[in-house]
């Protein structure tokens, strides 16, 4: 056993960590082995040098290095967390995008629009239908009818509810053929809202916002801030931004009357224009005269009343005073009587 060198036990020997029996055997071997005594001398010399070293504080860079080293295991953990977050974000984004596209596809698209240059497609409220100079389009208004969009027109599709279908004509021309209960279909223009009370009409709006309504069949009302013009089949009514609907007149009215109506509406020598209208009016033109009742001053109102009454007097029991006082019910009843001549 002493023939085996004891180099592996020399450090513990120096530190006094061997048992008594191990220490006796090391002492016996060292006594007879020069090689192991030389090894013991080297260990004892090195240990003496270490004991001579003083204790000093470690500089910050050392501690940073230690902290950095200590963080090495966390970096892997944080990487995993980051990966999890990234995955969650991607998942949320995917779900969100999917939801967006799903709801977008599922959103009501009540308008069906067909262009002459292409096929038909369904469109949602808020979308625009625009036609180039050489193209047309047709808007299907649910089961109510159709709206033909003429070349060079811009019209916005509006909201659709049980009680209302709405379009907004920015400029251009549309022709509507609608079969629906009154006031269900409305076309907004810069100068008035065209409220459908009848079947077919054409609306034109210029780049300046001024417009014109031509009724083909049925009738419609133009409305703007409490001002209203009723336009029956065969009649025309112009609209002006800020002023709303003008005075309606029949397309077959005398040219002088039509020109005077335009002058009256634009305020161009309105007094003379009213004289011309009163002089030129036919029985049928009581349409125009009836609308003037509420648009002239009280003195001229008497003249307009007398002219209408000469054609068709107010039916009993309506009185002149009621009409001149612009009693709404009396005006309506007289209009209904006059309309038999329109």
């Amino acid at each position, binding site marked *: 056993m002493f023939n085996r060198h004891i180099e592996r036990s020399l450090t513990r020997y120096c530190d006094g960590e061997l048992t008594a029996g191990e220490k006796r055997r090391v002492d016996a071997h060292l006594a007879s082995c020069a090689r192991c005594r030389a090894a013991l001398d080297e260990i004892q010399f090195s240990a003496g040098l270490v004991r001579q070293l003083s204790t000093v504080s470690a500089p910050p860079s050392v501690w940073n290095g230690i902290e950095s080293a200590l963080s090495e295991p966390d970096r892997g953990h944080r990487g995993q967390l980051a990966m999890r977050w990234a995955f969650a974000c991607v998942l949320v984004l995917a779900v969100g995008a999917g939801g967006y596209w799903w709801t977008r596809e599922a959103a009501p698209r009540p308008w069906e629009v067909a262009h002459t240059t292409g096929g038909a497609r369904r469109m949602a409220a808020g979308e625009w239908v625009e036609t180039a100079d050489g193209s047309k389009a047709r808007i299907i208004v649910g089961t109510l009818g159709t709206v033909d969009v003429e070349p060079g027109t811009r019209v916005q599709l509006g909201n659709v509810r049980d009680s209302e279908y709405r379009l907004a004509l920015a400029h251009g021309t549309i022709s509507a053929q609608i*079969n629906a209960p009154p*006031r269900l279909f409305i076309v907004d223009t810069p100068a008035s809202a065209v409220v459908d*009370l*009848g079947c077919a009409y054409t609306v034109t709006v210029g780049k300046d916002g001024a417009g014109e309504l031509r009724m083909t*069949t049925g*009738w419609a009302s133009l409305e703007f801030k409490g001002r209203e013009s009723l336009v*029956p*089949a065969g009649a025309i009514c112009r609209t002006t931004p800020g002023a709303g609907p003008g005075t309606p007149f029949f397309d077959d009215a005398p040219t002088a009357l039509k020109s005077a109506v335009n002058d009256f509406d634009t305020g161009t020598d309105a007094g003379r224009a009213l004289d011309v209208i009163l002089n030129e009016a036919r029985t049928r033109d009581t349409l125009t005269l009836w609308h003037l009742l509420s648009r002239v001053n009280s003195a001229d109102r008497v003249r307009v009343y007398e002219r209408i009454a000469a054609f068709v007097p107010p039916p009993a029991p309506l009185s002149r005073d009621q009409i001149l006082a612009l009693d709404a019910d009396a005006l309506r009843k007289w209009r*209904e009587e006059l*309309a038999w001549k329109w």
Partner: protein
Amino acid sequence: MSLFKSLAAVTSAVALLATAAAAGTMFRLEIGPPIAAGNLKDLKKGDKKAVLAVRALVCDDLANVQITGTAEGLVNGARQSLPVVLSEANKAEAIYFVSQQWPDTGAWVLHLKGSCSSPKAEASTLVAVSKATFIREKSEVLREPATKKQIESALATLARSRS
């Protein structure tokens, strides 16, 4: 002398009838655009397709006035006659709507006939129509049901004007 009296009586009667008719004091039918038929806001969907409205005037019992109609047409030289169904706008005032119940092609005249029970009287009107519009200036108001000859004449006149 009796001949003179008879002639005078007949002349007076004719003049009286003509005056009454001219003054609008006899039972008659009047036509107008659908807008004439009353409260616009209470219209039913179908009423909006009306081509015209018709009403009876000068009858003591307007609620029981009977108005019927036919569409008399000439299509590619062939004579056609179609029944026309009227819809009530205001039965108490004998106001009815007439919607298009005839083809777009050809010349068409509506023969609307009304009868009043008190005083007992009949009247009619011949209305020229073009697709879904009526032509007032080519329409006639008659104090009695239109004769076949009057209908054919109105139809021929309309067809000529359109050819």
